C-alpha cells in the first residue's frame, strides 16, 4: 500500500519528464530545423504542465477566484504558478514566431532546412 501511494503521488511528474525527453531528443538528434523547433515546443509544453501540476491541492480546493464564504488559503489553488505560466505561454508564442522568421531567412539564403546540407554549403563557400 505504501508503494501504491508513492506511485500515485509521483506518476504525473514522470509523465512530464517522458514528454520533456521526447522534445529534448527531437532537439538534439533530428537533422531538420523545423523538427528541432517542434521539439522545443514539446519541451516548453512539458514545463508548463509541470508547473500547473505543482499548483494543485487536494481536499476540495477551488479555482483561484474569491467566492463568498471561502476565505482560507487552503481552499484555493496556488495562483502563483498560473500567473508565471500565463506569461510563459505568450512568450513561447513570440519565440516561436521569431524562430520561424529566422528559418524563413535561412531558407531564402541556402535553399534548404537540413542542418548537414547547410553546413556543407558553408564549408564550400569558405574554401572559395
Amino acid at each position, binding site marked *: 500500500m505504501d508503494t501504491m*501511494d508513492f506511485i*500515485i*503521488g*509521483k506518476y*504525473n*511528474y*514522470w509523465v512530464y*519528464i*517522458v514528454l*520533456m*525527453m521526447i522534445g*529534448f*531528443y527531437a532537439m*538534439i*538528434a533530428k537533422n531538420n530545423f523545423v523538427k528541432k523547433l517542434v521539439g522545443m515546443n514539446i519541451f516548453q509544453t512539458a514545463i508548463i504542465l509541470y508547473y500547473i*501540476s*505543482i*499548483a*494543485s*491541492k*487536494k*481536499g476540495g*480546493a477551488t479555482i*483561484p*477566484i*474569491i*467566492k463568498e464564504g471561502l*476565505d482560507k*488559503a*487552503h481552499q*484555493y489553488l*496556488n*495562483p*502563483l*504558478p*498560473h*500567473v508565471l505560466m*500565463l*506569461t510563459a505561454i*505568450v*512568450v513561447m*508564442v*513570440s*519565440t516561436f*514566431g*521569431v524562430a520561424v*522568421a*529566422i528559418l*524563413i*531567412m535561412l531558407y531564402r539564403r541556402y535553399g534548404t532546412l537540413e542542418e548537414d546540407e547547410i553546413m556543407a554549403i558553408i564549408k564550400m563557400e569558405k574554401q572559395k
Partner: protein
Amino acid sequence: MRIIAIFAVVITGFLLIYATLDMPNWGDPNSPASRHVSPRYIEGTMPETATPNMVTSVLADYRGYDTLGETTVIFTAGIVCLMLLRRVTNGQ
C-alpha cells in the same frame, strides 16, 4: 550520432526522475510551493486590491514589474519579425 543522443536523453531522464523522489506528492496542501508566499496573495487580494480574481491581481499588481518585462519581450518579438521578413515591393 543517434546512439549518443539516445544515451544523453536516457541519462538526463533518469537524473530527473531521481530528482522527483524528493518532490512533495501531487496535490499536497502542505507542499513548500503553497506555503511560502501564496497564502499572502490569497488572503490579501480582497482587502488590499478589491479584485476577486487573484491571478489578475498577482499578474498586474504584485508582480507588475515582471509583466512589464514580458510585454516588452513580445513587443520586441513582433518588431524583430517585422524587420527580418517585411519586404516593400512596389516602392511605397
